[in-house]
């Protein structure tokens, strides 16, 4: 019963019964973190419900229906109640279920959850690590909002939940439940649960091993999925202001257990089982992820006596492998580079040759022109020389004729 150890009777008050108090004080000083993921189609009331649950407005802008793909939007808030600090992270899916082709809708969500596990694993595997001051971003609870059609689960819902049930605690919720009548709601719930069971979807079960809460948890398990209504507006009922939605035919009060399961959800999610949700995330979902990831990386438990050493060896082997791969890639890139340079050189050489040829051609043309011009010039010079000779001969003739008839010229001149 005591793990094989003898039980020792005490003869007086020792004082270690204060150990739980010491633990509580330490935890309070450190503060807690809680991360909720809300999945649901646009318009199922996710943001309003979170606002109602935590009694504040979280400032989430309303999104359109025209997102091209599913995105996740995470926001972290620091809340305080009495002296307990809570770092609350709310992750919303934007654009879920709005696309025409919804095949890839759930993949971003799975990737996000895995990324948080991976971040924690990386921190845990570091040599110098600081786990006790690490801000835990792993998703502790996933609120899955089912549209209040009144019929059954959609294929998208089934597909998404099936891909998430081994990674996160899923709590299915019927959103905007004030659009379903009481009888329809009962049938709807039964149909939903039986569909989940038939398809083997593992949703989160409230724990029933702790005697103090097992009874209430068992009852609550039977009320799943919770049909909730959220509202941040207050309406006067009787002489109090309560959170409610006002219709012409009546007022739906959020915190009235006859109207919807909001109080049950708040009770289960926050008051009773918050710690169990965190514990399950760490001890079950994270461990599963870690095991798969380490096995993927090539680690084995086969020889327990070599554990730390073989971990180091495996690390070294992996590092060597990666290094060799890197060398290979570098070599490849270098080859490609050299190849490209060679090709460019060839092209450039060809271009150079072409230009050279053209230059030669032009030079030849130029030479020909020059020769032609030379010839023309010489011809012209010859003609000029000829002309000069003729002119000289003509002048000589003229002077000769002048000398032979001088009087006649004079007589002519006198007469004139």
């Amino acid at each position, binding site marked *: 019963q*005591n*793990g094989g*150890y*003898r*039980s*020792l*009777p*005490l*003869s*007086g*008050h*020792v*004082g*270690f*019964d*204060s*150990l*739980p108090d*010491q*633990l509580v004080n*330490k935890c309070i000083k450190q503060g807690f973190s809680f991360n909720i993921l809300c999945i649901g189609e646009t318009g199922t009331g996710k943001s309003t419900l979170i606002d109602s649950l935590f009694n504040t407005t979280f400032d989430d802008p309303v999104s359109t229906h025209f997102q091209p793909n599913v995105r996740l939007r995470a926001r972290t808030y620091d809340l305080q109640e009495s002296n307990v600090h809570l770092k609350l992270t709310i992750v919303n899916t934007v654009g879920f279920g709005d696309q025409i082709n919804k095949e890839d809708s759930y993949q971003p969500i799975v990737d996000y959850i895995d990324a948080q596990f991976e971040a924690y694993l990386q921190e845990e595997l570091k*040599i*110098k*690590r600081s*786990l*006790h001051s690490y801000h835990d971003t792993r998703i502790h609870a996933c609120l899955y909002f089912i549209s209040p059609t009144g019929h059954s689960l959609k294929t998208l819902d089934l597909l998404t939940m099936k891909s998430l049930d081994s990674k996160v605690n899923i709590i299915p919720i019927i959103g905007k439940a004030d659009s379903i009548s009481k009888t329809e709601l009962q049938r709807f719930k039964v149909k939903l649960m039986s569909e989940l069971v038939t398809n083997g979807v593992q949703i989160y079960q409230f724990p029933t091993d702790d005697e103090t809460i097992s009874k209430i948890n068992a009852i609550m398990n039977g009320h799943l999925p919770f049909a909730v209504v959220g509202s941040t507006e207050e309406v006067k009922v009787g002489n109090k202001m309560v959170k409610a939605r006002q219709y012409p035919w009546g007022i739906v009060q959020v915190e009235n257990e006859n109207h919807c399961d909001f109080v049950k959800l708040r009770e289960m999610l926050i008051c009773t089982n918050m710690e169990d949700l965190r514990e399950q995330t760490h*001890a079950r979902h994270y*461990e599963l992820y*870690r*095991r798969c990831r*380490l*096995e993927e990386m090539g*680690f*084995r*438990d086969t020889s*327990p006596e070599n*554990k*730390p*050493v073989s*971990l*180091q060896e495996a690390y070294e082997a992996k590092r060597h492998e990666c290094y060799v791969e890197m060398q290979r890639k570098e070599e490849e890139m270098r080859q490609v580079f050299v190849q490209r340079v060679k090709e460019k050189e060839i092209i450039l050489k060809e271009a150079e040759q072409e230009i050279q040829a053209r230059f030669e051609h032009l030079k030849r043309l130029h030479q020909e022109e020059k020769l032609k011009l030379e010839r023309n010039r010489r011809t012209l010079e010859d003609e000029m020389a000829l002309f000069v000779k003729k002119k000289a001969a003509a002048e000589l003739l003229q002077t000769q004729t002048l000398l032979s008839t001088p009087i006649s010229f004079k007589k002519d001149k006198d007469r004139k």
Partner: protein
Amino acid sequence: GQSGLGKSTMVNTLFKSKVSRKATQPGREERIPKTVQLQSVTHVIEEKGVKMKLTVTDTPGFGDQINNENCWDPIIKYINEQYERYLREEILITRKRKIPDTRVHGCVYFVPPTGHWLRPLDLEFMRRLSKIVNVVPVIAKADTLTLEERAEFKQRIQRDLKAHAISVYPQEDFDEDPDDRALNDRIREENPVHRGGGGKGNGKRVLGRKTKWGIIEVENPMHCEFPMLRDLLIRSHLQDLKDITHNVHYESYRVRRLNES
């Protein structure tokens, strides 16, 4: 601590039960072991619904030889072995939900009440061990010192520790709460108890030692600081001891181990 300083008695007084068997009981052979041996005994104790698995490790033979060189080695080896065990479990691919924790959370070192200074053995031991485990030094059998001698001894010890840069628990760098720091700036004293001796002081039964010159009450803070030690180890800092062991000492062991291989 060396034999005869009242280690077993103190543990029995702390936990108000027969945790360790005293070496001075009749029928047990008085034998000083040739080397330092470590003897661990584990019990489960329960108080007001809170169950605790308590492991007390004793070190008979420590400091008892003629040549005490390296007598701290078996102790260091033992402490590191517990860290190693935890590390092995932590690195497994499929690991247990709750890793069994056998690491040493607190090491109580008994200083003999010489009244002068710390001896070289004390300094060497505390220097080496304060790096890997929370060390709580305690002046043993303090009923042989008067109040003034005690105060002086304490001061000298504190100066010695500071001069040699030995940081004993509670370590100064981890004191986040200023009230804690004021409380922790003292080295504890202690007075072994004659179990069941129960003398009568003020007409009621108290835990104490009966001597010819009076009754020394263990739980009277005017007589000895046993209550403070008990409060430190159990009532107020038990969780802190475990946390510092896990977050500081274990982590530095892990860093050393992963770096060396």
